[in-house]
């Protein structure tokens, strides 16, 4: 991105305004060496609050925390399974969107447009109850399928952009050696595209982890639903949802950091 300088308004060297609105928390930049970045305050603050509550207000917070781990496991299960399935769907959607075959291209584009136009919560309801009418799919799996179908569309756009970012000459060089289109994709284009795709896929992972709380309406005992179950029996709504929110926050911040570290590793290895 080339900085655009406006000599009339900027007396000091102007920095390009990059408006980066993402779904995830803000990760401190490498050069930001200060101890009190927003990320650090949020992450360690959340851990401190959890520890404080559990040790000094163990009734009800200790009980709540003991009740939630099963839900955390389910949340992870839904997230990981969904993201894997979404990656597969996304790969084929991305390839489809780039296909010169009009039927394939049209199908992939239609899928993306339709999915992006329907709220995830509505899709979850729809797939859960629509599927339920024909086949008996366990709630867990309809949740995973619904999440994957939804995120697959976004993932498809990520794959498409990642593939398009590879210079045209790479495909030409591969084809000129006698490799088929599929071989060239597999051997030359996709391995390079994965590198550029990884950061946005990481962001999708975090976003999906948060959105997975929506599956709690489908009789899937994820973190949020476990909280709801506990709260409705003990009438400790405030305390329980405080705990649930803090746990989501810690998990999300942790993964965001992990992903940004991975990004650095990859760009350093270039």
């Amino acid at each position, binding site marked *: 991105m080339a900085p655009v300088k406006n000599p009339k308004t900027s007396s000091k060297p102007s920095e390009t305004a990059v408006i980066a609105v993402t779904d995830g928390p803000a990760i401190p930049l490498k050069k930001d060496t200060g101890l009190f970045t927003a990320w650090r305050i949020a992450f360690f603050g959340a851990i401190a609050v959890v520890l404080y509550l559990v040790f000094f207000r163990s009734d009800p917070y200790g009980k709540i925390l003991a009740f939630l781990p099963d839900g955390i496991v389910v949340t992870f299960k839904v997230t990981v399974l969904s993201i894997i399935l979404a990656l597969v769907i996304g790969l084929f959607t991305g390839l489809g969107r780039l296909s010169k075959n009009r039927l394939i291209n049209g199908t992939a584009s239609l899928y993306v447009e339709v999915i992006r136009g329907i709220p995830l919560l509505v899709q979850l309801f729809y797939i859960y109850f629509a599927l339920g009418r024909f086949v008996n799919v366990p709630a867990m799996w309809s949740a995973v399928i619904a999440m994957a179908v939804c995120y697959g569309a976004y993932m498809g756009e990520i794959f498409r952009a990642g593939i398009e970012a590879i210079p045209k000459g790479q495909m*030409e*060089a591969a084809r000129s050696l006698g*490799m088929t289109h599929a071989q060239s994709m597999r*051997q030359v284009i996709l391995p*390079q595209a994965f590198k550029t795709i990884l950061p946005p896929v990481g962001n999708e992972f975090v976003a999906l982890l948060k959105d997975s709380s929506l599956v709690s309406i489908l009789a899937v005992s994820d973190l949020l639903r476990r909280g709801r179950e506990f709260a409705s029996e003990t009438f400790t709504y405030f305390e329980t949802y405080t705990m649930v929110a803090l746990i989501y926050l810690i998990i999300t911040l942790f993964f965001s950091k992990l992903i940004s570290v991975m990004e650095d590793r990859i760009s350093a290895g270039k």
Partner: protein
Amino acid sequence: MPENKRRVIVEMRHVFKYFGTLKALDNVSLDLYEGEKLVIIGPSGSGKSTLIRSVNQLEKIDSGSIVVDGYDINDRRTNINKVREEVGMVFQSFNVFPHKTVLENVNLAQLVVRRRSREEATEISKQLLLKVGILEKADQYPHKLSGGQQQRVAIARALAMRPKIMLFDEPTSALDPEMIGEVLEVMKNLAREGMTMIVVTHEMGFAREVADRVIFMDYGAIIEEGTPEHFFTSPSHERTRTFMKQIL
């Protein structure tokens, strides 16, 4: 030896190619003989690259015919990948595979297309890397290499297929001046070994030393052809004379 006794390996007849309304190739007919070294010159946008890229169908032509090593490449029944196995290509922008080491770059198509064993492929790759003078970089990734070195890897990669024809599309145009020589040297060696070559270039010294025949193109058409000497001493067309003055 009279040329008509030698085998024609590329035969182009009345080839037309349009980019939108722009005529990129305008009724081009051309015979390339086995072992011949053909140099194509001409101003930018004259259709040189389009011509060379149509030989292995990186550009599809709109009408006319191109027969390469007996294959009519515009015939739907022709497997273009088979033709491309026999036609090596070197690009202006190298196009080495950045995610693979030098050795893997040269190995890849041998394994995937020629289905050679890894040992055999590596053996061949190492010979070729030695030949282009870059064997010591075999385990490096391309980004550690200079432009000239990358281009020599690209040449080795194409040669690994044991092609019958080599196409060079402005192979030195993206290089710093001090690296042009090393790439041209590799190409000259290849010419001496008898490789059939089509070279799009502005390097007139190379043309003079290597080319059997030179073609001058402008506005998508072949304006003039002849020996390198002909172009240096007595080009017949006004446009050719103007162009030669500009590049010499």
